[in-house]
């Protein structure tokens, strides 16, 4: 990492900033929103079509008889995802939810696994290809754009299924009438009944607020959990890389700590992919249930 740019003195801040910088490309000259992270897009789309393509390739030739080892492996993943969908969703899961969960799981897992690549090697290869110093973030899920894109897509699907199952009126009713119920028409004979008459319409407001918070927090917690875990993992690897560059002793320490963190990261990567998939299934099943 040091050899990359010998012309300038490499400070820790620059090292980290370099590795945390995206390969940003402007679309047109508007700037602002009209920008694209080439690294995130390239890696994620490549990985997405790689993993989905691979299982498509196996699924295309899937046979009902004795399966090949490759097919058996794909079927293990299939069964794993299908079991989760089955336990969460009580409808025709094969129509959409289970395959969507499979896509989410495999894609997010593949993107998360990019964090197993040593950060500096990736940077070296990219700069070798580009021929000059270039930013390149190898882990698409440590880009907030990716996790938000996934979470918002799920959020839109959630609203779509809500309307599909309950109708638009049903969704609006649910927003105003659950979880606390609607106003009750007390007879204003007693003082208590009079208070009830005034207070109970406020339930509508409370329900609305409650549901709005839920609707906003769902995509946020969904996306930020994945982003936070992967981003933190990446930053820690960068800090360890920096420690390794400081001295011989630092290198030994960084190797040991790096090994420990890598083992931990081996758990985090599939776990976060699994959690992301589970939350997708849960949100989509909740949309199918009416209160």
């Amino acid at each position, binding site marked *: 990492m040091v050899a990359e740019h010998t012309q300038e003195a490499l400070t820790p801040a620059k090292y980290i900033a370099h590795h945390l910088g995206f390969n940003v490309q402007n679309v047109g000259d508007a700037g602002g929103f009209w920008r*694209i992270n080439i690294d995130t897009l390239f890696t*994620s789309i490549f990985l997405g079509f790689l993993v*989905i393509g691979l299982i498509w390739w*196996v*699924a295309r030739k*899937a046979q009902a008889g004795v399966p090949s080892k490759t097919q058996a492996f794909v079927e293990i993943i299939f069964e794993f995802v299908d079991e989760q969908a089955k336990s969460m969703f009580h409808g025709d899961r094969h129509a959409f939810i289970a*395959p969507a969960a499979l896509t989410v799981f495999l894609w997010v897992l593949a993107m998360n696994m990019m964090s197993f690549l040593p950060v500096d090697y990736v940077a070296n290869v990219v700069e070798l290809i580009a021929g000059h110093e270039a930013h390149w973030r190898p882990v698409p899920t440590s880009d907030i*754009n990716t996790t938000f*894109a996934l979470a918002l*897509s799920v959020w839109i699907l959630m609203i779509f299924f809500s309307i599909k199952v309950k109708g638009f009126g049903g969704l609006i009713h649910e927003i105003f009438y659950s979880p606390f119920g609607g106003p009750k028409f007390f007879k204003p004979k007693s003082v208590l009944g009079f208070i009830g008459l005034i207070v109970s319409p406020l339930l509508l407001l409370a329900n609305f607020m409650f549901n709005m918070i839920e609707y906003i927090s769902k995509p946020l917690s969904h996306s930020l959990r994945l982003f936070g875990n992967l981003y933190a993992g990446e930053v820690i690897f960068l800090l360890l890389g920096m420690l390794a560059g400081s001295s011989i002793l630092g290198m030994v320490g960084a190797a040991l700590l790096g090994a420990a963190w890598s083992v931990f990261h081996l758990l985090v990567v599939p776990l976060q992919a699994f959690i992301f998939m589970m939350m997708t299934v849960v949100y989509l099943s909740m949309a199918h249930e009416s209160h």
Partner: protein
Amino acid sequence: MDIHLTLVAQAIAFAILIWVTVQYVWPPLLGAIETRQKTIADGLAAAHEGKSALEVASKKSEVTLNEAKQKATEIIGQAEKRASQIVEDAKGAAKVEGDRIITGAKAEIDQEVNRAKEGLRAQVSVLAIAGAEKILRKEIDGKAHSDMLSKLAAEL
């Protein structure tokens, strides 16, 4: 926290990937697995059926075997009974036949005896008369005495 067009692009990629999975990946895998599950379930059911059929057959064969044994015993018993009856019958017939033969023999013997008696009777009277004629030639009326002796001979 820099959100821009990447998000839209990622969402589109996500939508395409989901579509591909829903359309082309999930159904063939599901079909293969469900067909195999059905095949296995059918096989297990068939095995179960075969097992119960075997049980029924062995029970049936046992019953048949027992019946056959019982029948055989019956037949042997009947045969023994019949054999002893035949022996009894034969014994009876032989006894009857023997009796008949004995009776016949006895009758023949009686006849023979009678015939011999007749012969003797005839000869005795002739001899007696001849003897008496020789002894009493002169003094006895031959005819009156012959009658007397015939009467005597008839009393024998």
